[in-house]
């Protein structure tokens, strides 16, 4: 095939001036222009990144290049220059490697967030200075108050005195890192929350729903179990650490955000299960020691926190272990010798039940 002359444009890499040239492909690529005569060895040539039909070639590692649009010459060069697309041909294999390594790295980061961060949090939580933990507790307390709609604090003086005596009895020799600060708030949800710094928030409906003082005291002792294990601080550290890690490293691409959200939910749930069981054991211990009915916690759990109808559906994501399972565990630990004991007498219990007397029944209009 006779070599055909093709028009092209040569750039010397030193200036932006365009030199019109003719290209002829012989044993080498011959470039001829005004005051210009070059012969590039075919083995040295590398193609630039251009959109067809424009083709750009130049000796690898040098700034010189020549542009042309002739498809015949482009095809001929592709045939005869071994290294024309060297960087590109390895790109597809490189991409597979990249994808596999990225997946491995992602799984490793997720593993770190699920197992590593909580493990660090467990060891870190007890050594956080009490002053800092107390300050954090205050901040979280304000936040919780806002979420619940600023419920009023119940503090009827005689009832409060009964509660304080009860707390003193229960926490004596309890090995708590800090003296817990219990506040009762008027709210229509039966629940109690433990915050960092030994703050326990009791929502008044819990007292209303308790049929015996031991049921209420059992829940309270369960919360003290969380205080003893530094659970709130641990959860706070683990949740913020994991979410920080996941969102920073994984970036914010649409699909991954779901992974992050589900991951966080699973982390906090899987973590809570052990924590709840430990707090249940603590509660049984405290109730037995302070003269109450250790099985009452199981009774009130069964009454208040009924299982959902479809337990298998969201099973992994529940933050409390299944009530039946928990109640059975508590009863097995408590045995039967404490059944029927009362931690408060009838008069004190009636007084305590009226702890919200100091706040009006309905919010003022």
């Amino acid at each position, binding site marked *: 095939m006779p070599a055909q002359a093709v028009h092209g*444009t040569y*750039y010397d890499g030193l*200036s932006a001036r*365009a030199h*019109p040239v003719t290209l002829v492909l012989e044993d080498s690529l011959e470039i001829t222009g005004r005051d210009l005569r070059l012969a590039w060895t075919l083995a040295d040539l590398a193609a630039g990144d251009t959109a067809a039909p424009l083709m750009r070639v130049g000796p690898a590692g040098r700034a010189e290049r020549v542009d042309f*649009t002739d*498809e015949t010459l482009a095809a001929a060069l592709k045939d005869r220059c071994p290294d024309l697309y060297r960087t590109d041909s390895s790109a597809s294999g490189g991409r597979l490697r*990249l994808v596999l390594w990225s997946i491995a790295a992602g799984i490793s980061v997720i593993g770190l967030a699920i197992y590593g961060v909580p493990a660090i949090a467990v060891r870190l939580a007890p050594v956080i200075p009490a002053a800092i933990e107390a300050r954090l507790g205050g901040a979280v307390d304000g936040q919780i108050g806002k979420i619940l709609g600023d419920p009023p604090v119940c503090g009827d003086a005689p009832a409060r005195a009964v509660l304080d005596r009860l707390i003193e009895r229960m926490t004596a020799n309890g090995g708590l890192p800090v003296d817990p600060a219990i506040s009762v708030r008027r709210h229509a949800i039966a629940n109690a929350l433990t915050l960092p710094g030994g703050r326990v928030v009791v929502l008044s409906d819990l007292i209303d729903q308790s049929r015996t003082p031991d049921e209420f005291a059992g829940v309270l002792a369960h919360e003290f179990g969380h205080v003893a294990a530094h659970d709130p601080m641990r959860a706070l550290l683990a949740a913020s650490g994991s979410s920080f890690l996941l969102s920073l490293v994984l*970036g914010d*691409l649409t699909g991954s955000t779901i992974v992050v959200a589900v991951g966080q939910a699973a982390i906090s749930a899987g973590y809570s299960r052990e924590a709840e069981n430990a707090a249940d054991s603590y509660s049984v211990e405290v109730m037995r020691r302070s003269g109450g009915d250790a099985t009452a916690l199981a009774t009130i759990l069964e009454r208040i926190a009924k299982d959902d109808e479809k337990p298998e559906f969201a099973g992994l994501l529940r933050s409390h272990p299944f009530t039946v399972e928990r109640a059975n565990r508590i009863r097995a630990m408590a045995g039967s010798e404490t059944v029927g004991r009362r931690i408060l007498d009838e008069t004190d219990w009636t007084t305590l039940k009226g702890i919200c007397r100091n706040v009006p029944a309905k919010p003022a209009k």
Partner: protein
Amino acid sequence: MSQPPMTDTRSGMDRSGPITFDRTLKGLTGIAVRGFLLSLVTFGIYRFWYITELRRYFWNRTIVDGSPGEYTGTGKELFLGFLVAVAILIPVYVLIFIATISAPWLAAFGSVLSFLVLYVLGQFAIYRGRRYRASRTLWRGIRLGQDGSAITYALMAIGWSLLTLLTLGLAFPFMRASLERYRINHTLIGSSRMESTARGRSLLLPWLAFYVVVLLPIAAALIAFLVAADFTIPDDLFIPKEGGKPGETEFNSDYEGTPIATFGELFLTTLGITIPLGLLLIPFYRARETRLFMNAASLGPVRLSSTLKARQFYWPYLVYLLSVIGFVLILGLVIGGGGLLLQAQGMESGFHWALLFGMAFGYLGGALFFAVLYVRVITARLWAAVATTTVVENAGGLDAVLASSRRVGSGLNEGLADALDVGGALEVGF
């Protein structure tokens, strides 16, 4: 077919060279689909390679005075930059966290402090990211570059931002022009320095449109409301909703028919009308700004001249918005239909798994659809609008540009921009 890509009009200094962009966008959908899906399975790590591929696509289809640009950056550089940025950012985050919990008086300013630190870092990263992109851009074999100090740029940005806050936004166009001048005056093509004469006062009119359309009506309605309320808003204007969730409030019916209610409603209506109008003004302002900045840029005798119209910025957004509305409507119909079927079939039929699967599929499909649509409609069309309305005047002067032996910037700082989410790394534009 053996025509040289250069046109033969290279006769003198006063000829003008067009900038063209291939609007057919052949192959772009493939890049976007692959980029999205691989980013998804690699937990987002592929995004650096994806954005590199996009840039190469846009650069080498943009033909300036007969020669296409060339992007020589790699995904690996961006990824390494990102890793370094993470290493820098973790201590910064941890320090801010420790500072806020150990110094009580700082706690109240915790978010402000972290915002300030990250804002300055973000501006730093934006500037250095631009340096990286410039140093990976070639035209006619000549490498672009950027010098100047990212610290100066970040300090300028924060100073101007504070001034903008103090002047209720009036300083904004001056900030934009000042930063643009700094960027362009430190941009080099080879060894030739570009120059910008952008002036904030020429941007003042389009910027004041926001005040006329948004701020003035709101201020007027607010003053009317305050006058009607005698400058005291009653505490019990909103009361806790009876039987509602905690924190939920409703309008106190005692105030019905009073001037407070009338003007309050007027105020809310004004907000509801003017804020969307203000959003609609954004493309208009952006188009004006882009045209002005383009016209202000020069390289010796070579000037840029832009005829960009605001409607060329509106069109892509309109198409995208209509597509989003259409998609949401279809999805709503499908989910509604699925819900009805579910009710008819009962929960136990296992049908809810199919529905769940369908929803996950719909979510992913929707995300993919929008990602591709965004690249094709917004990114590509805006790019095309800016490129094709710009002409290089006195293009003959470009022949005098000489290569520089400057050191080439690293990709480290663009990774910082990505880790800070300031959009540097994921933007295609310059």
